């Protein structure tokens, strides 16, 4: 190494790493610990609750104001198109609001830099804040809260926040359940919700003993950051906790949301929309950011992540459940691995549209999907419309980072896992944080992000195609 570099670069790098013998390093003060770790409460729970309840109307109104600025949240069902259980209409139309004086076609002609400098990116394409960003935690839709209260007498209602999206923009509830082991049966839910009280009668004779035991564990509540027995909780009475299927209701999603466990500080954590567990048997990486390599790893570690924000210290205090890897985790994983996608009768075994069954618009959509739209580069039909990779869209090319929206810092998302598109009409809202309300929104988003310059007709064809998946 040349002497000059040795003298200049290396010491500055080494200061942070190690103390050279003899001379003490003059290190700057580290960042405060609660940037990473959850601090203990400093005031009594009754006072916390009083303050949270008093603040709640303003918190909810602020979030509603942000949502209304970003989206058209109105109920616009797509005529004749329902989700797989036939219980809810799919919503139509682009819901992200354009900035005044702009059109989608005009935006498509601008470079990312021009859109960023002129602040023209629709706000609905920005990361979506949690309803109460600085507190975060799991928030359940009202249907889930009501059902669990009725069937289990367990309280999932928080005293500080409510769910923030209207019910017509969330998945049908309860969702149908399809099993890879019993495809001939079709939906085995009978229109009912799997709960710790209902599962046995619903599934005995259909599942194996280990699958039933896995299911029981997935429905058993365990302490969680906001739902537990300590003074640091957001539910009125000491709580038994939450179950895996409180969010992944009937192994699908009920649009319950949370924040990523993988980012700190709190203001930087992005929102997480619950992922469907359908098609788990084909998925090779797990978690939007963590890229865990098996559903067993994911199931095991969710007790520290979904449950405790990736803070194992807090988990230990509030009552971490540590499922036995070779016994319990294996059974939970086996149960998750038999959840199938909903039927897609227009698709052939290779995941391509059968021309004899598909409409002309749908076939045209598939051509866009495979070609100009570049969708199939990641959402490959032959591998269940995913690629087992994480990708970075660099959406931040289009906006200035560091702007704060409802206490969340709008930052780059970084690489995010490719999600499957099988059964995609069943799982709004879209993207990892649920920032897009309809399939039409996703088409506009990717058209802009990838510079596709899709025509109006091509966009409609893509939506028609995705409805067949």
């Amino acid at each position, binding site marked *: 190494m040349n002497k000059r570099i040795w003298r200049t670069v290396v010491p500055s790098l080494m200061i942070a790493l190690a103390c050279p013998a003899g001379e003490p390093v003059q290190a700057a003060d580290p960042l405060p610990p609660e940037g990473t770790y959850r601090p203990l409460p400093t005031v009594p729970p009754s006072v916390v609750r009083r303050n949270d309840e*008093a603040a709640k109307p303003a918190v909810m109104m602020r979030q509603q104001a942000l949502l209304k600025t970003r989206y058209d949240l109105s109920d616009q069902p797509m005529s004749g198109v329902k989700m797989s259980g036939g219980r809810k209409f799919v919503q139509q139309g682009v819901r992200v609001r354009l900035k005044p004086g702009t059109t989608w076609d005009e935006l498509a002609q601008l470079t990312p830099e021009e859109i960023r400098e002129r602040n023209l990116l629709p706000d609905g394409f920005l990361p979506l804040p949690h309803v109460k960003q600085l507190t975060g935690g799991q928030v359940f839709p009202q249907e889930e809260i009501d059902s669990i209260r009725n069937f289990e007498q367990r309280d999932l209602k928080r005293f500080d926040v409510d769910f923030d999206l209207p019910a017509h923009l969330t998945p049908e509830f309860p969702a149908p359940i399809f099993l890879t082991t019993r495809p001939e049966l079709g939906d085995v839910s009978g229109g009912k919700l799997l709960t710790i009280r209902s599962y046995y009668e619903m599934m005995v004779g259909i599942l194996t003993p280990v699958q039933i035991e896995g299911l029981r564990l997935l429905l058993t509540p365990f302490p969680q950051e906001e739902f537990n027995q300590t003074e640091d909780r957001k539910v009125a009475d000491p709580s038994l906790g939450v179950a895996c299927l409180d969010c992944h209701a009937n192994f699908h999603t009920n649009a319950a949301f949370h924040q990523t466990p993988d980012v700190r500080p*709190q203001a930087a954590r992005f929102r997480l929309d619950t992922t469907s567990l359908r098609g788990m048997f084909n998925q090779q990486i797990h978690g939007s950011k963590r890229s865990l390599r098996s559903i067993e790893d994911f199931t095991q570690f969710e007790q520290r992540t979904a449950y405790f924000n990736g803070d194992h210290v807090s988990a230990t205090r509030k009552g971490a459940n540590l499922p036995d890897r070779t016994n319990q985790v294996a059974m939970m994983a086996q149960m998750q691995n038999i959840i199938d996608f909903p039927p897609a009768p227009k698709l052939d075994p290779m995941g391509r549209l059968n021309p004899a069954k598909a409409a002309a618009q749908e076939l045209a959509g598939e051509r866009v999907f495979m070609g100009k739209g570049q969708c199939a580069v990641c959402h490959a039909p032959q591998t269940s419309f995913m690629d087992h990779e994480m990708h970075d869209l660099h959406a931040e090319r289009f906006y200035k980072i560091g702007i704060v929206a409802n206490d969340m810092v709008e930052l780059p998302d970084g690489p995010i896992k490719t999600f499957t598109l099988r059964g995609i009409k069943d799982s709004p809202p879209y993207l990892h944080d649920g920032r897009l309300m309809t399939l039409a929104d996703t088409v506009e988003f990717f058209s802009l992000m990838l510079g596709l310059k899709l025509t109006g007709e091509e966009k409609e064809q893509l939506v028609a195609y995705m409805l067949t998946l």
Partner: protein
Amino acid sequence: MKVMLSLVVLAALTGTATAANTGNPGGMVADTPGLERGQPTSDHANPQDKLFVRQATLGGRAEVDLGKLAQGRADSSPVRDLGAKMAADHGKANDQLARIGRSVNAAVPAGLDPADAAFREELQREKGAAFDQRYLIKQIGDHQRTLNLLQWELSFGQNQALKDYATEMLPTIMEHLRMAQAALAALTGSAPPQ
């Protein structure tokens, strides 16, 4: 119309007199006026606010001091310009923080932080491209640190004026970081920012 109405109500609810929005109960201070009534004042400061004023003030001082040094001593004109910009921007921000932070009564030691003073001495001994490189590497580290400090204040602070300050500063500091990274890339051939 509905949106307008809710925005008006929202403004009324979140005006200066309203509750501080502290996320985690660990960020609440028991002696906050109004806490027992569920109406905590937003101008009270918790320990995080005080620590933030201390750390941000010391960091800002170093930015101005080192910026001036770089403005006069850097080898290349982009780095001299960057130094001048840092001195000017952080000088302004420091004044603003001093005004807001006065009511918080944070204990802030006089002069440069010892770690920054030690670095300054080392930097002064450098010349040419080596000076520029060491200054830029320090700038990158300091701005990364400041970004995290601002977000930490936003996450756990209680004083609304300080949180507003953190909100206002974040995009600027992000921009500074990119500028320093781009300057280092130009100087050394390291990977430029995305």
